């Protein structure tokens, strides 16, 4: 494995894998690797990729190892077909966050430009415009931490929306050590830099550009569809409804070690598109310690990540207490007549977070392991615990999550640019969160009006066929149990397809 700060174009991610028979590989890929949402950092392009920068470099028109600029792009279409499932009661008593049991078709279409420019030695700017159109399942309601398509955004529309996905400045200060080559990739200019360095990022980005990076899942548009494999489901990283934020991140990198610190904007309201820019008052803080290693000659990394959100959120126990003290006045339905931010539940017999939002803290800590099993197969394990006392503010309503995945490239069966994987993930909620939902409460994504609490789980398998050098077509299957942490609902079968091109 190479360092994620400088993925090597000269050494493709998965090199030839000839020692294991194809059957073993086929079995080994019945696991999954973390994939990231549209907000995640895209993977590096390989040396033989048919993209603009490679073409220019091959014609002697661009110095790809010492770039002053670069430009990449991608286009992705994903369709998901949710088959009808066990029709247990849903949207009970006016609660409105259920996955409907009927057949549904969901899609996303996205196109992105990644533009980078070197201003001076170590100083770079990146600008990433993106357009997306989408139709979620059940208005993106009724699934906790295992939303079937990482590209879906809260509040997205079927009409294409153009937005600025990133605009940030990056300054690298060399601190010595050996020199190493960074490669020309989306949001990375080709250059030679110190292995010990301080890197500052300021602007508009997703925290996943810099933290919880994963060697096997750099570009989710090539790998797993499900959000459970994008990052920790319980990582409620400060971000708007698209997964983006404004802020600053500092990285101190010393050979195999890296320490990252970041402060970013949360949304003004939970899962909203507006930013809360008063970073002194409300914020999402992150710290990550990262160490890369080799085990039996195979590279890997282990990361410890902790976060602390200071946001205007509601605590479940306080919402329940408010309801129990005044059931007629402080129920979910009565929020509708107020200016308080609410999720439009009309359940008169349920508590609601709208009554108790105030500056609150949410914290979590997670551990991630990624490990090459061979040159072409990688394992990833991620687990996180959040305190689970207050509502989800930016990502998924999960309070504890565990995801295990395997990813493989198809070199051993003669298709080195094909990718396949399998993974399983489990997401839990805290007991007070479960009690709130059982009473009919809703949050930004879940709330059936009742709850028989159980972990939500997903099993996913996919295969991506490389049709042309820059074009992949993928088939995907997901088996979702206990959607919205409700043992009375599901299981749900979701079939998916994806077309992805890079240039």
């Amino acid at each position, binding site marked *: 494995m190479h360092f994620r700060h400088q993925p090597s174009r000269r050494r493709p991610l998965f090199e030839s894998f000839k020692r294991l028979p194809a059957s073993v590989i086929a079995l080994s890929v019945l696991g999954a690797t973390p994939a990231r949402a549209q907000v995640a950092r895209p993977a590096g392009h390989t040396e033989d990729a048919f993209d603009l920068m490679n073409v220019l470099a091959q014609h002697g*028109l*661009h110095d790809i190892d010492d770039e*002053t*600029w670069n*430009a990449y792009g991608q286009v992705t279409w994903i369709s998901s077909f949710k088959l009808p499932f066990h029709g247990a009661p849903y949207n009970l008593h006016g609660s409105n966050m259920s996955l409907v049991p009927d057949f549904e078709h969901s899609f996303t279409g996205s196109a992105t430009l990644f*533009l980078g*420019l070197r*201003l001076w030695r170590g100083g770079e700017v990146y*600008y990433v*415009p993106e357009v997306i159109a989408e139709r979620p399942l059940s208005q993106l309601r009724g699934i906790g931490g295992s939303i079937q398509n990482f590209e879906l955004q809260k509040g997205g529309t079927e009409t294409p*929306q*153009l*937005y*600025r*996905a990133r*605009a940030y400045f990056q300054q690298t200060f060399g601190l010595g050590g050996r020199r190493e080559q960074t490669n020309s990739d989306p949001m990375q200019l080709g250059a030679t830099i110190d292995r010990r360095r301080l890197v500052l990022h300021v602007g*508009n980005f997703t925290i996943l550009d810099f933290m919880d990076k994963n060697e096997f899942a750099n570009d989710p548009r090539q790998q797993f569809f499900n959000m459970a494999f994008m990052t920790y489901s319980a990582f409620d990283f400060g971000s*708007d409804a*698209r997964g*983006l934020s*404004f802020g600053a991140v500092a990285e101190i990198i010393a050979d195999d070690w890296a320490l990252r610190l970041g402060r970013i904007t949360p949304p*003004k309201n939970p899962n909203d*598109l*507006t*930013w*809360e*820019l008063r970073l002194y008052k409300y914020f999402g803080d992150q710290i990550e310690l990262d160490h890369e290693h080799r085990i039996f000659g195979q590279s890997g990394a282990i990361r410890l990540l902790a976060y602390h959100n200071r946001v205007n959120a509601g605590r479940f126990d306080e919402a329940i207490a408010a309801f129990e003290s005044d059931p007629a006045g402080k129920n979910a339905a009565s929020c509708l007549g107020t200016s308080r931010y609410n999720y439009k539940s009309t359940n008169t017999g349920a508590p609601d977070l709208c009554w108790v939002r105030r500056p609150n803290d949410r914290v979590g800590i997670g551990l991630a392991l990624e490990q090459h099993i061979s040159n072409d197969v990688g394992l990833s394990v991620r687990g996180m615990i959040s305190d689970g006392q207050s509502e989800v503010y930016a990502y998924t309503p999960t309070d504890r999550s565990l995801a295990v995945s395997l990813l493989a490239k198809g070199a051993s069966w003669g298709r080195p640019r094909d990718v396949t994987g399998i993974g399983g993930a489990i997401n839990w909620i805290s007991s007070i969160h479960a009690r709130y939902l059982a009473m009919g409460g809703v949050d930004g994504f879940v709330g059936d009006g009742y709850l028989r609490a159980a972990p939500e789980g997903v099993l996913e398998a996919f295969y991506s066929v490389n049709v042309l050098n820059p074009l992949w077509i993928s088939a995907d299957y997901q088996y979702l149990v206990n959607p919205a942490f409700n043992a009375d609902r599901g299981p749900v079968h979701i079939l998916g397809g994806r077309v992805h091109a890079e240039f």
Partner: protein
Amino acid sequence: MPSSRQFLSAIAGASAALMVSSVIAAAQPLADGYAVERYYPSAPGAGWLVMDHLDLYGKLGGGVTLTTGYARNPYSVAAADGSSSLHVVSNQAFVDVGMAVFYDRYRISLNIADPLYASGNSGTVAGHEFSAPSVDPGKYPDKVTDVRLGFDARLLGDANGPLRIGLGAQLWVPSGERSLYATDGTLRAMFRTLVAGDFGMFTYAGQLGVHVRPLDESPVPGAPRGSELLFGMAAGSKFAISRAYNAAFVLGPEVFGETAFHSPFGKHTSGVEALLTGRLQRADEHGARETVKLGFGEGIHAQFGAPDWRAVVAVEIYDRVR
């Protein structure tokens, strides 16, 4: 208990009130909003802030420009009899990111506009109800409005000669919400004849063209009236700053405007503004150039999108294959 007569009277009264309110409502249609911005930043490498220096030549190259600016009262409306007026858009700040690739005498470009801030006043003027835009970085953190794709070509004249003539075409792809006064919500196009030249330290550029604009919001005051004639001229002097660094400063005015074909050069269907522009540029022997541009000016005829005053700053970098 009310009598049947009282009841009928109440019904009649309510019906009359409803009819009157309907008539009032019909007389005060809500203006939907449209692209107010009349400052169309030139493509990277074009030299001027709005006009095009048209010195396209040489090997394959590319450039980027970051432009930011502020306009005061870019959209003000007034009743024909002067009885009322309203600054619908009173503050507008933006960032434009421009990118271009050029080869020989041709250039293709892309401009992406990010609204930073917009505010104004809501109210009713001349029977039309206007709703002020409200944009700030927190509310619309990642908003992108119309994207502009362009193609320009130098057809006649040498790259550094006294007369260069070219053609340009630009296409706006709509994005964003009309209510922010940042887009028409329709495709638009611009076709221009470009002229430019250099005589010693004197430099000039001009344009004449057509803005193909499907939106006609008649009779909303100050609103688009369909397609427009575009015109503009720039002239300045070039002062050498440092021969060692091949740095120069160009100072001169740019005047530009538009008028709707619907009512050519009408008082409320035309806008003209002037910017005093200065640019500091440094070039190397290979044709790479770095430029910082400043512009400040006011609306000569502050109607139809021309603001009371405007300030603009731009940074431009371009390079070409060695």
